[in-house]
């Protein structure tokens, strides 16, 4: 397994507010690392710094050994991104959305068309190639975004809540695709609010709270190391949402 992503002493400040503080982790090929944290914990900010959509305040990120802040155009070639928002172009069809994205990777036209068709097949959208984006359901849109993230044969796919808001069937379809990709050697970096998703996909979990990594381990080991029964208990316990707080919440409601 070769290291694809190195995050070294990474920090992000907005004025006086520190969104990400001294975060370190590595993602290797054939590995899925999950960032677990409540809303505003700094997960999306960390991901955005990796694909240069947010600037780095302190520290360093290397993708395939290359410094992200020195040469974003090169490092982005190795990345596929499933962002939280779909960011699809409403003026184009399903197939055209993929082609418009693929153009930006210098993929020759003929090859690109083949690749797009192949990917639509992979995510089960072949029948929708010439449909407008508005005709897709939420799950279909997410699958299209996943296909878009695979156009450049990325070494690392960044998945920011890839299945939020989807029905159980759609989630399983996406999980299956992601596990296939992992087997093929792709590295995955995931954020999710679903514990079952993290347990199913991740080899390593980082629990992040207020920009700081509180604990790190495999989904099986993390509860054992910290004296909890399940991953969810560990997450809630470590992030301060313990029994006492729970009682107060219940008393208030």
């Amino acid at each position: 397994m070769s290291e694809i992503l190195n995050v070294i002493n990474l920090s992000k400040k907005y004025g006086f507010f520190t969104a990400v503080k001294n975060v370190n982790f590595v993602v290797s090929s054939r590995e899925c690392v999950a960032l677990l944290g409540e809303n505003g914990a700094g997960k999306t900010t960390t991901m955005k710094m990796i694909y240069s959509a947010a600037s780095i305040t302190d520290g360093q990120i290397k993708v395939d050994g290359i410094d992200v802040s020195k040469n974003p155009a090169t490092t982005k070639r190795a990345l596929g991104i499933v962002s939280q928002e779909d960011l699809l172009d409403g003026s184009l069809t399903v197939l055209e959305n993929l082609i418009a994205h693929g153009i930006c990777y210098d993929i020759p036209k003929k090859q690109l068309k083949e690749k797009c068709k192949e990917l639509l097949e992979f995510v089960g959208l072949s029948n929708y190639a010439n449909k407008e984006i508005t005709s897709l359901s939420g799950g279909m849109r997410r699958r299209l975004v996943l296909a878009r993230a695979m156009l450049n044969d990325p070494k690392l796919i960044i998945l920011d809540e890839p299945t939020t808001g989807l029905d159980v069937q759609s989630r399983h379809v996406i999980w299956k695709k992601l596990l296939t990709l992992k087997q093929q050697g792709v590295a995955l970096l995931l954020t999710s609010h679903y514990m079952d998703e993290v347990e199913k996909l991740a080899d390593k979990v980082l629990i992040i709270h207020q920009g700081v990594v509180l604990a790190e381990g495999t989904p099986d080991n993390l509860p054992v190391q910290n004296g909890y029964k399940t991953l969810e208990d560990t997450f809630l316990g470590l992030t301060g949402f313990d029994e006492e707080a729970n009682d107060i919440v219940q008393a208030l409601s």
Partner: protein
Amino acid sequence: MYKLSLNSIKHVIERNYMSFKKLFKISVFPNLLDPILYLVAMGIGLAGFVGNVESMSYFMFVTSGLVAATGMNAATNEATTNAFIQMRVEKTYYAISMTPVNLQDIVIGQAVWAGVRSTIFGSLFLIIAAFLGAVQSWLVIAIPLVLFLNGLLFGLLGLIFTIIVPNRDYLNYYVMLIIQPLYMFSDTFFPISSMPKWLRPYSWFSPLYHAVNVCRSLMIGSITNVGWNILWMLLVITLLGIIPVRLVHKKLVY
């Protein structure tokens, strides 16, 4: 961070062309209807009362002004409404910037595309006007090039505002306070010489005034005014070009 890539800019233009091709039939009508209405109202309706202006027929005067103004409006639509949707509504700017294409390339690509749109719609209007007898010289074949520069300039200017404004309503201010006055007072519908003396020097600052001057000269077959005006446009394009490249990183990368 501000290094532009020609290859990336080319990809942005290709991408814009893909959308444009699909929406051309819908957008061609409003883009051409406006100047055609003005042409009929002023160039034909009003012309009978006016006679000659600056030693040419008033029809010729208005038509040449409208060619440049059509280009300006087409570029402005691209750089304001279309760009705003791509930046803040559908956020395709962010989707494209996930690829090796950086935000700086996207914004310059869009300015160049505004130039292309100005060329397309300005030239279409010129062809319509030609059927009505507004072309007197072969020099008109150079007009698409002028339209491109004019569109690039207004593309950059519009994009600067679009990047800065906090919401869509502010774009109306740009159109009402900058584009609309330029449309009216840049030698388009009446000569600057008929304006109050103190106001005349300001026309020199209007980009449209220079584009109108060049288009008018070429349409009547003269090149006396062309050189300096083109130089003015090139200079302003160079100066303006730096601004959106810097702004886009500041305003869209958090």
